[in-house]
């Protein structure tokens, strides 16, 4: 009789020490699986960093214009309505891919380009080949303007509200999904 009770208590012991680490593993694996699934389904992008400039005024850093190096790009001339600032470069392949999307956007709001670390001649050739959706283009040869905006890789786009505050930052090319799900709703809200 007593032997049997002992046997039962022995069974209860291994059960707990088996289940506890297993539960720990399952919780960790659950987190990993959730993160993996979110990444694969496209709702989480580990390369997309949050911008701290959201709802802050757009940095006023002067840059020479592409078509006239003596003139300065001034966002204040566009103040009073929403606009999109797009950092791009001729050497950047995703910038080629987003050219049609920018052309589409330029029909609804002014799109300002900043040629990031690019030779003006290369930028010009790029615009000739892929189209020029920009209302104005600034030149940021050494990346200082990009640094002021917190740019960490081209293409990067900033939606700026009528009050000149940054509403949204998108790092990476604007594809159909980003256009439909992120930018167009945000622009509608801004307008």
């Amino acid at each position, binding site marked *: 009789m*007593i*032997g049997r009770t*002992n*046997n039962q*208590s*022995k069974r209860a*012991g*291994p059960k*707990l*020490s*088996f*289940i*506890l*680490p*297993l*539960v*720990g*593993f399952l919780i*960790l*694996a659950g987190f990993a699986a959730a993160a993996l699934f979110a990444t694969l389904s496209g709702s989480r992008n580990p390369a997309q*960093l*949050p*911008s*701290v*400039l959201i709802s802050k005024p757009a940095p006023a850093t002067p840059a020479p214009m592409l078509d006239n190096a003596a003139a300065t790009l001034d966002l204040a001339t566009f103040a009073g309505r929403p606009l999109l600032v797009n950092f791009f470069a001729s050497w950047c392949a995703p910038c*080629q*891919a987003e*050219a*049609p*999307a920018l*052309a589409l956007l330029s029909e609804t709001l002014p799109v300002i380009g900043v040629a990031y*670390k690019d030779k003006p001649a290369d930028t010009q050739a790029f615009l*000739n*080949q*892929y*189209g020029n*959706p920009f209302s104005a283009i600034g030149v940021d040869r*050494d*990346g*200082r303007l*990009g*640094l*002021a*905006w*917190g740019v*960490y*890789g081209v293409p990067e786009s900033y939606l700026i509200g009528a009050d000149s505050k940054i509403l949204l930052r998108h790092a990476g090319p604007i*594809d*159909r*999904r980003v256009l439909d799900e992120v930018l167009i709703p945000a622009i509608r809200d801004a307008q």
Partner: protein
Amino acid sequence: MRPVYRNFGLILLLAFAVAMDIGGVSGIATPAKAITAEEMLDDPKLESRARNLSKQLRCLVCQNQSIDDSDAELARDLRREVREQLLEGASDTEIIQMLRGKYGDYLLLNPPISTGTFVLWLAPVAVLVTGVGIVLAAFRTRRLNGETAQSPLQSVEVVASGTEKSKTSIYLYFICGTLVLAASLGLYLLLGRADLGDQPLALRQAEIETAARTQAAQAEKLATALAAAKQQTIDQPENVRSWLRLAQSAAMVDDSKTEIRALKTADEMTGGDDTVKSMLAEALSRAAGGQITVPARELIASVLARSPTEPRALYLAALAAYQDGEYANAVSTWQKLQSVSAVDAPWMTLVDQNIANAAAAGGIDIPKRQLRPGPDQADIAAANEMTEKERRVMIEGMVSRLAEKLVENPSDVEGWRRLGRAYEVLGRPADAVSAMVSAADAAPQDADQQIAGLQTIMTSGLDRQYITQASRLIERATQLAPGRLDLLFLRGHFAKLAGNNNKARELWQSLLQKLPADSPFANDLESAIAAL
């Protein structure tokens, strides 16, 4: 007690932790000193402060290196920024605050404790505490078990069987481990040994050489063709054909610059010919690695606005829609291309594939029937293998099947059009005309359909016999699209047929005024008016 199962969970947890660790460690295992000599400051004190700051800042491109280690462009910019601020006399905290204001906490390799990061900081402690708890619990159970084992009440059999079980499990572990090791060693010796030769490649050497020779000969041929075409454009610069030939030869050798230049010249010479414009759009897109660029899109749109059935422009418009992710639009445009193409057009197979791809990508349901309008590609391939006579018999068989179907379902406009084209190919103009007239009758609200019918009547050479049908189509088309230039021409043609030369002259003259003066067609039209 079952030691194997008991440890199973713990082993998994450990393996997971080790895997995570390896992931973490490998990121910092090979620190590369990325800083270059010209970046360094002259003042050693400032320089050491700069180095110290750089080590605390994350490179946002590599995301697992400090800007001190990273060779990325952005890291270089940040190092420059740090040094410039130091030279201006900023304190370390000021510099960090300034950069944090632009890039956020993520910039700091040591994240500050905040509501967002406390889980991160707490997690290692929590894991440690849990681990200690588990180990203590395990010890306690073991001690309890040990006590019971020594208890005089414990039966000898149980103890013996317990020891035996743990012994078997040790043997099991040992055997499994040895097997894994032996298997990997065996695999290595069989497939991965360093001294194994590259025999398959050596065997293929001759084949590779032949292929290279053929390729070189081919390239030389293409280069000669290109040079000849270039010479021709110099000899006959006013001949559009020579420019088109140059574009073609340049396309064969992937010389997109020459191709685009030649096509632009041809475009100017023809005053904006739709085919040339479409070819230019295609060349621009090919130069951009297959992406339909914005300038190409503008060309396509202008071509389609004037001639909505230009096959190349239709194809590219569909491809542009596909690239934008507008799959439904892409499918319908490609289907339109299929409906205006001859059944044996060379691009049909490609378009079929593209429609299937776009439908799959967009989750669009396409009935099998629509995927293959008219005779199937395999039928056509089979037809190409046959003799002329057999082919005719086969095509006629398919055509009569299509005709039967259309008798049952006379409202199928596309079906009538296909039938009409098939009859044209077979050289049966009367049947072609009646099929196209049926297509026009089936879509009385579609001006394109009426005009296509009129064009078929006119080019069939049977226009005198079909004058009543023609006047019916003209009446409808004039109501739908009175201003269309092609309609004006057709109306003039049929007015002339009806003997009404005055009306024909009036119509053609109004057409002439709308044409650009240098259009080659305008000359023909003028002489036609003069002949009236």
